[in-house]
């Protein structure tokens, strides 16, 4: 597989970050950074990462099924993650999540037909004091109201 020069540089750095013989440590970061570039974890990527760190594809698959941020199916271009955990719940995070589902016409871990958006009801994202909070891809949005969410999603939809 070929990746961007930037990702290759990151892989090189990662493979040098752990003690000799411990290159397996780079697995989870490599999978996540590669997912960011190619959109999902494919079988080809699993094989590639396995080869580069010297483990079997089975060992990569076993790890990848554990981590909630690693996806084997494509997400929307904008992955909308709404926290409904306790601190957000106390600020109506559950209602915000339902609003987002209605607005986009999709449910948990579903993708819109045009591939623009996906939704995930997520566990605590570490924005508890600024609840309710969401993440769109890696960007945090704090004190989100249904109106602010509408504006945000409409703005993203218009982006080229």
């Amino acid at each position, binding site marked *: 597989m070929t990746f961007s020069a930037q990702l290759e540089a990151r892989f090189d750095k990662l493979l040098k*970050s*752990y*003690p000799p013989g*411990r290159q*397996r*440590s*780079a*697995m*989870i*970061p490599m*999978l*996540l*950074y590669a997912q960011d570039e190619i959109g999902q974890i494919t079988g080809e990527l699993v094989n590639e990462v396995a080869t580069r*760190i010297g*483990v079997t594809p089975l060992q990569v698959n*076993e*790890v990848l099924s*554990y*981590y*909630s*941020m*690693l996806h084997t199916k494509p997400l929307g271009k904008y992955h909308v993650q709404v926290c*409904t*955990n*306790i*601190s957000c*719940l*106390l*600020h*109506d995070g*559950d*209602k915000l*999540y*339902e609003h987002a589902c209605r607005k986009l016409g999709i449910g*948990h871990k579903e993708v819109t037909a045009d591939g623009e958006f996906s939704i995930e*009801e997520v*566990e*605590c*994202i*570490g*924005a*508890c*004091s*600024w*609840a309710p909070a969401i*993440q769109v891809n*890696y*960007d*945090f949005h*704090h004190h989100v109201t249904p109106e602010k969410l509408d504006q945000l999603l409409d703005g993203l939809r218009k982006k080229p």
Partner: protein
Amino acid sequence: MLFNEPSPLETKVLTRRFGLPNSASIDTYLATEGYQAFLKAAKMKPEEIIAEVKVSNLRGRGGAGFPTGMKWGFVPRTSSKPKYIVVNGDESEPGTCKDRVLIENDPHQLIEGVLIAGLSVDAHAGYIYIRGEYRYLIEVMEKALAEAYEKGWLGKNIQGTGFDFDLYAHTGAGAYECGEESALLESLEGKRGIPRIRPPFPAVAGAFQCPTILNNVETFCAVPAILRDGGAAFAALGIPKSGGTKMTCLTGHINKPGVYELKLGFPVKQMIEEVGGGIRHGKKLKAFIPGGSSCPVLTAAEVEGATMDYDSMASRKTMLGSGGVIIMDEDTCMVKAALRIMRFYAHESCGWCIPCREGTTWLKKILMRFHDGQGTRTDIDLIGDIAKNMLGRTFCPLGDAAAMPTISIVEKFRQEFEDHLNGKPCPYEHSGSMVTV
């Protein structure tokens, strides 16, 4: 960037640089006594560094509250194996968002704390494990690491002291369990985040089976101040047995939610009323969680006279925990709160220990049924029984973390469970139902 206004009642030790222009840059850090504690420590004997940390009464800020100096003292410094320093930045305990602001606003303080830990046990490499959702903090950290290498505060022969240290940022990929120290070490080795049986503890067999100091971000961030101003000065900020300050995240039904640095022993009432501006909409307090959703819940009556420190919370059979304060007002449905907390633990249970894997899932199902008005009277005791049977029967504390708040809610708010039996889905809430996934 700060997401909330500071409070005049804060004691700014770890947050002393917050709000300065470019507070995350090495130039700002060096201009404000940055890395001076490391230079001081480099002239000390390792045992003197550990003694200073012991004098400070610093206790682990991730939730367990274990004395930091003692933990460092367990590392066999003269072992022929390499030693490692690992930073737990997997902040995921619901209610907790403090490590985020510490890394974002002052990453060099964390680097300096790690360097001092490295000196104390003769370690020459370290890893900062940051949860995957905090991608922007990986970038902040990598920029700070690059600055530190460039200016000679990391790498070979740091500032001519003869001490070498390499430090790396490592991303997680979404797993609460990886905040548990032994599961974090598994994850760092490229495996599923499943806890290890202890002993051996990480101090003896940690990262790559080598002796390791593993502490929370906030714990390391306290270390430069301890070496700079002396352990006694840090200890004097708190109360006996609990030195210093605690990053406290006020969340839930409060007028001024935010992250505040408060002296240990800060009165809870003053924290709610003066730092947090009181309960939202002038309502009354119903329930109080002192430090993340795994802590037993306190009632408004139990909060009377309480202070934010390890002993005051232990005397009320709860914990100071991570500093994630969750405030629930009189309109909160405690069955719903118990259900949401349990849904989280059921989702995050790694599945390794059966009492946790099955217990959390069954409790979630029973609480869901209960909240929907389908519960039976025997369910109330069943919830308490299942939870009690999880306590102490798992490799790691996740099972306890799920059981403890549940037991406390059932015991202290039993009437609300009784009320749910009257046929109404939720007598405390008139709109909205629990999102179920």
